[in-house]
């Protein structure tokens, strides 16, 4: 990738002499996605690709590729670990642990395993455990297992079999914050 970027830049600088003004306004939007394909085409046949027409066909494909909310539809079954740094909607079946930020588990979804997250909203069923700062159990939720949380909301109709423990972060996240604070108060020893 780095190599390509370099190639790409050198290619640009060569061509910029021709049209210095045009590539720049389009650049900030498309740049992150651009380097790969263009670099490849540069590598394949150095002379051919002019700088202006190439971004046009690439940006639509980049648009369809980039802004997506992750959806695990009901037809999908996953056996294994799932990790996500973005919000995720689960309507399918998962056997294994889920680690996410915002996790929404739809009505027909089934999860066997532990669901970790900042915010977990359950309308389907979990057999396992939830560990999240904020937990919402909707009326259709079916939870078999323990819930470790800071905040919880349970709607009428939700089925829970397990214990609720409002202790998330007492062992995990708060100690991570405290040492920083104490070290900060200790450090100003210097003049």
């Amino acid at each position, binding site marked *: 990738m780095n190599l390509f970027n370099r190639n790409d830049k050198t290619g640009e600088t060569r061509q910029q002499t021709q049209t210095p003004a045009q590539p720049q306004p389009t650049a900030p939007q498309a740049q992150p996605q651009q380097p790969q394909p263009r670099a490849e085409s540069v590598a394949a046949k150095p002379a051919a690709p002019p700088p202006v027409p190439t971004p046009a066909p690439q940006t639509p*494909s980049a648009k369809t590729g980039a802004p997506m909310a992750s959806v*695990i539809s009901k*037809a999908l079954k996953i056996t294994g670990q799932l990790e996500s740094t973005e919000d995720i909607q689960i309507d399918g079946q998962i056997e294994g642990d889920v680690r996410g930020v915002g996790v929404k588990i739809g009505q027909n979804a089934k999860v066997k395993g532990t669901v970790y997250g900042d915010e977990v909203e359950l309308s389907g069923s979990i057999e396992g455990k939830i560990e999240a700062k904020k937990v919402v159990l909707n009326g259709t939720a079916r939870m078999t297992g323990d819930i470790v949380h800071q905040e919880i909301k349970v709607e009428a109709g939700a089925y829970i079999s397990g214990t609720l423990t409002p202790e998330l972060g007492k062992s995990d996240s708060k100690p991570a914050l405290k040492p920083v604070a104490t070290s900060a108060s200790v450090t100003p020893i210097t003049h």
Partner: protein
Amino acid sequence: MLTLTRRSEAQRPGSKTAPGMSEAPPSLLGPGVGIQGELEIEGELVIAGLVRGYIAALKLVIAPGGIVEGDIVAREVIIAGRLNGRVFAPSVTVEASAEVEGRLFHTNITVAQGARVSGRMPWRPVNYFETLDQLPEART
């Protein structure tokens, strides 16, 4: 799990080719999603994140930026991201932005100019995929 191609074949004559595909929107695994394990879907799956493991789908799209390490069994596979592993699909499309290392078992294949493919692309008749009960052992 590998009988998926058969199952989907069985669905076809029932005049309900579409429901599996259109009823549920295609599953999307965004750039921030990583999965290790087995994925089975009777429909379309778009991967823009990272998947390590086995994937069975009707249609699989590896979007630009998506990475798959493992074997894929599907009817149709479109690769615009990175793949390290094997593909078993009657229809395979390798886009210009793709980087493929491994084997692409196919009946019908399209490789765009600019794609990086290192590996073999063995041709197989369609019925090879329909009778594919077990994947051949990976030879590395």
